[in-house]
């Protein structure tokens, strides 16, 4: 989207707020609406916005696919790890009360860690889905563009012909890009 300067500037302004809002949803989920799942989706959407506006190549440089793959597994691992930790400390699986001296503080810590695990996995899977579906560059993309361009041009010409004459096309609107 090299000619969409306005879009790029707006996305650049918006992006930090989206990521910040995701963190707010993640860590404020104890007090207001939200939690790990929503935060993960919002964070992933922020990265996807970056990929859409600045290109998948740039996004891959910022968030490498390998890291995404690792993060997806790490989230589940963190969640299960909290459960195993409470098991090792002598309580039931996922019984967070044992994680700290005070059961309420333990519960709070457990919920925080578990939500973090959920957020991590969801963020990673959302980005992973986007990479998987949209990540193929090269021949396939060129073909898709050619298909679309051909269809659109033919339709536009038909539309002009319908009105009886191509002279009204006037200034070359398409060259502004």
């Amino acid at each position, binding site marked *: 989207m090299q000619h969409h300067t*306005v879009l790029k500037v707006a996305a650049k302004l918006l992006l930090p707020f989206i990521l910040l809002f995701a963190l707010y949803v993640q860590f404020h989920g104890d007090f207001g609406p939200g939690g790990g799942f929503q935060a993960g989706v919002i964070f992933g959407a922020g990265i996807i916005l970056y990929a859409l506006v600045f290109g998948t190549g740039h996004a891959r440089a910022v968030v490498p696919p390998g890291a995404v793959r690792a993060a997806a597994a790490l989230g589940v691992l963190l969640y299960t790890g909290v459960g195993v930790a409470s098991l090792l400390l002598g309580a039931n699986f996922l019984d967070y009360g044992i994680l700290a001296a005070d059961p309420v503080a333990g519960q709070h810590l457990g919920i925080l860690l578990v939500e973090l695990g959920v957020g991590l996995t969801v963020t990673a899977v959302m980005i992973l889905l986007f990479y998987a579906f949209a990540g193929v560059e090269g021949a396939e993309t060129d073909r898709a563009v050619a298909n679309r361009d051909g269809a659109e041009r033919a339709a536009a010409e038909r539309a002009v012909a319908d009105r009886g004459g191509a002279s*009204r096309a006037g200034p070359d*609107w398409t060259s502004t890009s």
Partner: protein
Amino acid sequence: MPSLIDLAAGACLLGGAAFLLVGAIGLVRLPDFFTRVHATGIIDTMGMGLTLIGLILLAGWSLPSVKLVLILGFMLLTGPTATHALAKAALHGRLDPLSGRPPEPPSSSA
């Protein structure tokens, strides 16, 4: 006897509602895509802005007010940007600006 701020909030809300309705009617009644863009402009700026300002006046100095100001700011940033980019994409996609004819056979929908 309502306070002056309440009156101002009410006026803003009513004005915003009027602009929203005008914009929505324009979106349906105007003849082609490039004129309809103007109608959404009314919804995205005047209607949205007046309604949110009315709510800010109702909320007074509080956390909801801060959130409403944030919403107002973000919507003022994204709404016109999205409309602009969409109009540009329509030009780029060779939608004729004078007739607003579709670039491909119109989809038959309900």
